[in-house]
């Protein structure tokens, strides 16, 4: 079977199964699993041994997912929730892993294998759970926050777990026959640990001195596909390095993500890699589904289903106890326990790696993977049961609480697109008043300089929807469009109006001409760059020429008001006279119209405020 027919099968399976599963409210992960099961050797038999190769390719999707997770970790968010994350997370992992470890031991499995399986089973499905929470709007409830903390802890624990596994292997009884001979084979253990830390350090150093400068150079070319290629190159190289050393490549990808999380390219990387990640993850799950050994399951249904039951029950109990320990309300606690009771996709990674290291044999791996897949299938069903049957029995429904300052902060409510002179002044002012905005700019030199000065600026073309999403546009309330070029500014505004209609747009206009365009686009809050400054200078001129300062300022205020009023008037005039058709005529005619309006503007004439002369004259007439 050649590449094209293979591609057809995989893609068709995905395209058919995933929409179906989403329809049933079961999420995309299950859809991919089903697709895999369907086309796998046990059902349609469209893919067979070749499935193994696809798995390696698709594993890359997992690396990407870990890279993006590393990228998205926000230290401040993490710090604020540290108690919950460390507390609930550690209880859950150690509790679950210990109980399952002992269960395995009593079943007669050797301790190294038992430990690997226990660690794999302690994980829950980040992808599934977070998606469910988001879909059901539970992010702000205590169950949502508890789930988030536990999952975050697990995400971080992947590092030590994956790093720890190779150490198990060298003590394992089976032959140390490696398919990919690693560099550190045969060295004493302490040296291997040292080399591991050396590798990690290399990643961090390379991150600062190699990755980011490389991205900077590529960014200057302004070729988006090149930027995407460089990011993929990054992940591949780091993963390869880790693989050569004999450590999980997924860990390397995660670290690379963490290293780049603080760079100005974070959002750009996120949005560039998202489609790849999604597709490759999908392939991964298809591969997993295909490699599910149905023969095995059907030959040993009882032990497998018993195991599924045992694992899910153990997880549920520990989660519930955990929740109780951290004072979750019963209805929230049940939801929390059900939501995380499955074994997650990381288990596949851990199991596969453990298998690769010969810690777990093939048969056991297949069984455990089957168990994992089955728990993932059952999970949404459980949640459905909870929703329909159990939950309504609870009287009090928890409303999303008002967040304490201690809790997770949503992404910033204000986005500034375009951080030139105008935008940066706004940014500085807002920051001085305690409002930290998310800042986007497309000039890579500029971004670099601003970051040096302590601003959190992200590099990217803000007219791209995916970048705006990545920067939090869906949750923000205000966007300031202060891009230098009027054409780009207007493009950005139309993108926002189309995709993020809830966002309140506050637009900079370079001059009157741009202001007229923006009015035509329906904007109300238009801020002309030069108006206030020019009037301010004019006021100072009046003062220098002997006018009282307060009077000059009032004149300035009146003029500003008058001038602002002319904008919609002139915009209408321009539109009615269709002046936008011929550029040269437009400028001339508009100037003419404006000046003729000015002739009638004589604010002093009617200004009788504090006018004692006027009063005196009127009184003395009598």
């Amino acid at each position, binding site marked *: 079977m050649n590449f094209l027919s293979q591609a057809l099968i995989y893609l068709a399976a995905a395209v058919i199964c995933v929409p179906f599963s989403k329809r049933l409210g079961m999420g995309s992960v299950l859809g991919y699993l089903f697709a895999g099961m369907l086309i796998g050797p046990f059902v349609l038999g469209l893919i067979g041994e070749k499935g193994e190769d696809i798995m390696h390719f698709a594993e890359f999707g997992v690396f990407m997912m870990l890279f993006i997770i590393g990228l998205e970790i926000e230290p401040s968010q993490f710090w604020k929730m540290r108690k919950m994350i460390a507390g609930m997370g550690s209880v859950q992992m150690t509790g679950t892993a210990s109980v399952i470890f002992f269960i395995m031991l009593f079943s007669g499995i050797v301790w190294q294998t038992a430990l690997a399986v226990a660690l794999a089973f302690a994980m829950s499905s980040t992808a599934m759970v977070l998606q469910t929470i988001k879909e059901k709007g539970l992010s702000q409830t205590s169950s949502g926050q508890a789930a988030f903390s536990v999952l975050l802890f697990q995400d971080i624990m992947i590092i030590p777990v994956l790093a720890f596994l190779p150490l198990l292997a060298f003590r394992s009884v089976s032959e140390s026959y490696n398919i990919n001979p690693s560099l550190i084979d045969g060295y004493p253990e302490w040296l291997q640990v040292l080399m591991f830390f050396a590798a990690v350090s290399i990643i961090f150093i390379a991150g600062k001195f190699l990755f980011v400068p490389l991205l900077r150079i590529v960014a200057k070319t302004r070729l988006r596909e090149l930027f995407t290629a460089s990011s993929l190159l990054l992940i591949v190289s780091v993963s390869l390095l880790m693989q050569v050393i004999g450590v999980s490549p997924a860990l390397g990808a995660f670290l690379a993500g963490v290293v780049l999380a603080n760079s100005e390219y974070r959002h750009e990387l996120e949005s560039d890699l998202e489609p790849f990640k999604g597709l490759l993850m999908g392939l991964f799950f298809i591969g997993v589904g295909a490699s599910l050994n149905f023969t095995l399951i059907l030959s040993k249904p009882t032990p497998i289903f018993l195991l599924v039951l045992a694992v899910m029950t153990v997880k549920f109990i520990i989660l519930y106890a955990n929740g109780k320990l951290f004072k979750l309300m019963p209805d929230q606690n049940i939801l929390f326990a059900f939501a995380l009771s499955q074994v997650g996709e990381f288990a596949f990674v851990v199991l596969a790696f453990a298998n690769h290291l010969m810690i777990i044999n093939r048969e056991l791996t297949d069984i455990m993977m089957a168990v994992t897949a089955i728990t993932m299938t059952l999970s949404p069903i459980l949640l459905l049961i909870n929703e329909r049957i159990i939950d309504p029995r609870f009287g009090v429904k928890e409303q999303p609480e008002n967040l304490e300052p201690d809790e997770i902060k949503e992404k910033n409510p204000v986005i500034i697109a375009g951080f030139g002179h105008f935008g940066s002044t706004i940014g500085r002012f807002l920051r001085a008043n305690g409002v930290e905005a998310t800042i986007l700019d497309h000039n890579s030199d500029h971004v670099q300089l601003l970051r040096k000065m302590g601003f959190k600026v992200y590099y990217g073309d803000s007219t791209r929807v995916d970048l705006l999403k990545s920067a939090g546009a869906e949750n923000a309330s205000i966007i300031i469009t202060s891009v230098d070029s009027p054409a780009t500014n207007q493009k950005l505004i139309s993108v926002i109006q189309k995709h993020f209609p809830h966002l309140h747009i506050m637009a900079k206009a370079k001059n009157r001409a741009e202001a007229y365009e923006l009015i035509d686009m329906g904007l109300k809050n238009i801020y002309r760059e030069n108006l206030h400054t020019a009037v301010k200078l004019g006021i100072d001129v009046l003062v220098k020429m002997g006018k*009282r*300062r307060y*009077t000059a*300022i009032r004149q300035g205020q009146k003029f500003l008001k008058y001038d602002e009023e002319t904008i919609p008037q002139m915009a209408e005039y321009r539109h009615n006279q269709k002046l936008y058709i011929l550029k040269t005529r437009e400028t001339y005619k508009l100037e003419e119209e404006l000046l003729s309006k000015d002739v009638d503007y004589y604010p002093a004439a009617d200004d009788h405020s*504090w*006018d*004692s002369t006027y009063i005196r004259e009127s009184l003395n007439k009598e």
Partner: protein
Amino acid sequence: MSTKILILFTHPRFEQSQNNALLLQRIKDIPEITINDLYEKYPDFDIDTEHEKSLLQDHNVIVWQHPFYWYSAPPLMKHWIELVLEFGWAYGPGGNALKGKLVFNCITTGMQKSAYTRGGQTMLTLRELLVPFERTALQCNMEYLPPFVVHGTHRISKDERWNIAGIYREILEKIINGDFTSNEIKKFTCLNDWFINIKPNYA
């Protein structure tokens, strides 16, 4: 400290002023007098309270000079009072910065002296209408003196204006020389009356 007078002056349209302009004109050369033109200094109402507080500390007689618009002072004067007279500095616990200093209003008004009667058009006497200022001063442990008043500003003649500006100057000089007692002054409803009492030929 030897007597130094701080004139806190508020006029929102000084270019049209005739009476206040002449009052200031005739006193501005006196070295012990500082004229603080608030509308010129703070047209944005962004008062530099630290600077104002140190000015207050450097002077022992304060004059609130302003046209008596709508039975009160122009907004910037009130703004100044609200911002500069801080709790814990001017009043309240530990608020002794202004203790013992003298303060009075110097006002120009279009109405005649006879118009300001209890039960008449203005409902209260001029002294009574100034109680908000008086209470402000007292709360800051200051001594409040009767006001200096220029009445009938819309119809006042040039000579009358000149005379009364001269009286203002002499009063301020007397205060600088220490040639008075507050109790004496407080017997009168306005500084003008006190002065005429001492120098009848000025009437």
